[in-house]
């Protein structure tokens, strides 16, 4: 839920309660005030009638309301004296409304020429149910207007105020530690946002330092290992050539050389990975992947013949991309070599080039590899001990450095790797 909506909900609830309570109180105050003023009016009427009675005695005979708002009945003195002025609400039939309507009524008594009279003065009351209904709808519309104006304020004003926040958020979302991007910057003088920006930048800088030192460590460590490995291999090779060496010793030495070689390959692969991740392959050229693949394949003619593997090329398009030639070479050769080495006798390989994809499919083990772990570092065929398990990681690292998508699939006894080059296609 968005912050804006959340605040809207809280505000609406608070408004609802405040406006509800307020309108009840307001309603009763208003009703009292209206009654007061009507009572004053009725009282005033009564006084006016009493004055008028002196000049116009016919009024004394008005013992029904008729069209007027008063009636007068003669009463006995005792009764008249017992009378107190009383205001009360009552219902009366109204011709125009054809219904009983509320009226305010004053009963009083007076004396005229030694004769006692009872006077009843009425005044129509505000219709209470109408009043409630009217004020209810006014309150509802007030509430709606308030909520709508909050939404408007939220969406136009608050959103504008929150802009720097969304700005920081977007920058953080797309921030790549490995891309050597500038620190996050926003255009705002609001203290909280500036603090957020500073905190984000501090975090970024710290992660960047950790990231860089980790990258450098891998690269430096691999570098430093090169010379000792060179010495080990060189010395063992010289030792192997010494004359008085027993066969078994020679075998042991050859074994150790083999292991040192594995170490060397592992180290080379790690170094290559570090370099790809450190973006040390900068220069780019337009490369035809069809040509690259064909060149690579021609290196494997004898091996393919030896393993009796057939290969076919399916060139629907000349797939031209803009990338580093060394990386293009490593990427394709890794996949092609995989397709050869993990193949079976009398197997086949099919390379497909579409307008944006390179697909390599090969026969091999009759079961699928695990697509979730296949691209992990050091993930390897357990039967192939000498493999470093980094071949596919290198391919992945190259794909990542160009934001290419690589997929593995297994269908109809074919293992397929598919790379989509659509974001580095060379402009034709």
């Amino acid at each position, binding site marked *: 839920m968005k912050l804006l909506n959340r605040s809207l909900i809280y505000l609406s609830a608070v408004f609802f309660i405040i406006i509800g309570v307020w309108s009840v109180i307001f309603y009763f105050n208003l009703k009292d005030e209206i009654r007061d003023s009507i009572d004053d009016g009725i009282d005033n009427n009564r006084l006016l009638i009493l004055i008028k009675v002196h000049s116009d005695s016919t009024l004394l005979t008005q013992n029904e309301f008729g069209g007027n708002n008063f009636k007068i009945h003669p009463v006995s003195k005792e009764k008249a004296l017992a009378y107190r002025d009383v205001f009360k609400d009552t219902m009366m039939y109204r011709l125009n409304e054809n219904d009983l309507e509320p009226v305010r009524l004053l009963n009083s008594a007076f004396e005229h020429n030694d004769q006692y009279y009872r006077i009843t003065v009425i005044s129509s009351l505000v219709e209470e149910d109408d009043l409630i209904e009217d004020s209810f709808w006014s309150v509802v519309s007030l509430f709606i207007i308030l909520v709508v104006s909050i939404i408007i304020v939220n969406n136009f004003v608050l959103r504008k105020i929150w802009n720097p926040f969304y700005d920081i958020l977007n920058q953080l979302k797309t921030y790549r530690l490995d891309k050597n991007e500038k620190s996050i910057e926003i255009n705002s003088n609001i203290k909280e946002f500036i603090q957020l920006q500073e905190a984000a930048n501090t975090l970024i800088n710290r992660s960047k330092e950790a990231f860089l030192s980790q990258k450098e460590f891998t690269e430096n460590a691999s570098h430093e290992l090169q010379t000792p490995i060179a*010495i080990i291999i060189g010395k063992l090779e010289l030792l192997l050539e010494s004359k008085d060496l027993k066969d078994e010793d020679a075998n042991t030495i050859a074994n150790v050389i083999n292991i040192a070689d594995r170490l060397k390959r592992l180290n080379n692969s790690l170094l290559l990975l570090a370099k790809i991740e450190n973006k040390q392959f900068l220069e780019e050229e337009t490369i035809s992947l069809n040509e690259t693949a064909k060149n690579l394949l021609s290196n494997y003619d004898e091996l393919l013949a030896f393993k009796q593997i057939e290969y076919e090329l399916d060139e629907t398009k000349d797939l031209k991309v803009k990338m580093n030639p060394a990386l293009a070479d490593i990427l394709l050769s890794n996949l092609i070599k995989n397709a050869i080495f993990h193949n079976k006798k009398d197997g086949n390989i099919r390379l497909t080039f579409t307008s944006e994809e390179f697909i390599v499919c090969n026969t091999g083990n009759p079961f699928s590899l695990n697509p979730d772990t296949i691209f992990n570092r050091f993930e390897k065929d357990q039967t192939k001990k000498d493999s470093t398990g980094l071949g596919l990681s290198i391919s992945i690292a190259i794909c990542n450095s160009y934001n290419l998508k690589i997929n593995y699939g297994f269908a109809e006894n074919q293992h397929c790797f598919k790379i989509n080059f659509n974001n580095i296609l060379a402009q034709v």
Partner: protein
Amino acid sequence: MKILIIEDEGDLRETIKESLLKEKYIVETAADFTSAFEKISIYDYDCILLDIMLPNGNGLDLLEELKKNGKSENVIIISAKNSLDDKVKGLALGADDYLTKPFHLAELNARINAVLRRKNFKGKDCIEVENVVLDIQERTLTIDNRNIHLNKKEFDILNYFLSNKNRLITKTALAEYVWGDHIDQADNFDFIYYQIKNLRKKLEESNAQIIIEMIYGIGYKLTEK
């Protein structure tokens, strides 16, 4: 043939030196920039092995000095840094080759051999051993003036053996030579064994005066009959 090794790592320097002495070269060594600078100023060498990272100086500066004197074409750069930049710079400064540590001694021999051949046979890049002539440029093999057909891998393997005559080549070194860098499957020996078997058969049938001996479990050695 006089070779200078410029390498600061003592153990590696000695290992290379020992290996080169077996090839009957005259070998001199320098462990730092200053002594290397002195040596290249005074003497001429047929081949110089140059490490780029040196105490008190950069190997590329030495290369620049050599280029000034027109002597940079027989330099092989040996570096732990497989950096494209250094490679490009080094080769632009006239270095002949660039070898990344760690390497097999057989590989170094092959590279030195190539440099020396290019230097001494001006234009004609051939290896001749007894009645066998391998033309590197034309990629042909002639035995007793008869052309013998080799496939690519057989040719490469024979080239490697001839550059390492009388030296033991381990299977791993050979596999790496055949498969090149960044290969994860250098354990694929069957194929190499098969290629060598064919190569031996061809040499034998043509009555070549060389033989590739197999030293069981370890590697191979090419010797004259």
